[in-house]
């Protein structure tokens, strides 16, 4: 997890396009300036970053389903529950399931577990748009490759 660069996902563990599911892992760093403020003397992974980790996992799922033709952006977070504290050094297992593939949006159910214990969950709405530019698209492809997200090219191109 490169927390300061907002790269919260370390690797894709499993991608099942038929079942519209993905699993990822992320190791919370042992040391980060974020923990100096959150909180002094009691470092905790901020809940908003747990939600971001779920959103990034959900986003990779949508990217994979769209075969890199479109880019998801977080639009809404619903029914988010942050159940347990996460401390530096903990390994997160993140699951996402595409509940609905709408026209220009997607609804994704997401969960994070640590040591098999449910940590948090949320229903996310993602707007799915064309990539704003080629540079961003290429950077997303490079980032996907670095975390082990493999998506075949579309059959027609």
């Amino acid at each position, binding site marked *: 997890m490169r927390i300061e660069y907002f790269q919260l996902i370390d690797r894709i563990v499993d991608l099942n396009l038929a079942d519209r599911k993905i699993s990822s892992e992320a190791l919370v760093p042992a040391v980060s300036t974020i923990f100096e403020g959150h909180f002094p003397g009691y470092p905790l992974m901020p809940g908003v970053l747990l939600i971001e980790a779920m959103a990034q996992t959900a986003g990779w799922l949508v990217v994979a389903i769209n075969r890199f033709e479109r880019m998801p952006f977080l639009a809404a977070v619903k029914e988010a529950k942050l159940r347990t504290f996460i401390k530096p050094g903990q390994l997160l297992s993140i699951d996402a399931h595409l509940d*609905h*593939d*709408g*026209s*220009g949006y997607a609804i994704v159910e997401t969960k994070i577990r640590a040591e098999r214990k449910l940590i948090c969950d949320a229903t996310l*709405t993602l*707007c799915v748009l064309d990539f704003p530019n080629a540079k961003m698209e290429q950077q997303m492809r490079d980032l996907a490759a670095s975390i082990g997200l493999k998506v075949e090219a579309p059959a027609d191109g």
Partner: protein
Amino acid sequence: MSSTFETIANIIAETCDIPRDSITPDSHAINDLGIDSLDFLDIAFAIDKAFGIKLPLEQWTQEVNDGKATTDQYFVLKNLSARIDELVAAKGA
């Protein structure tokens, strides 16, 4: 009015906390009811689920942006109901 209208009116009332009595077949979802694009995604999701369809929001938006259609054609609720009925019929064809 059709059961389709009743269903989407109830969805809008519940999703956007709009009094059901203020929602009529002639209501424009955006201009009269003040529904914004993000709230409309929630409505579209509920409609997709309720009718087992996929509202072609992107196509409709493109048509409006290109001047090939007006928002009235898709967002006045009696017209939206008719579009939904067409999509449901096409699905069953």
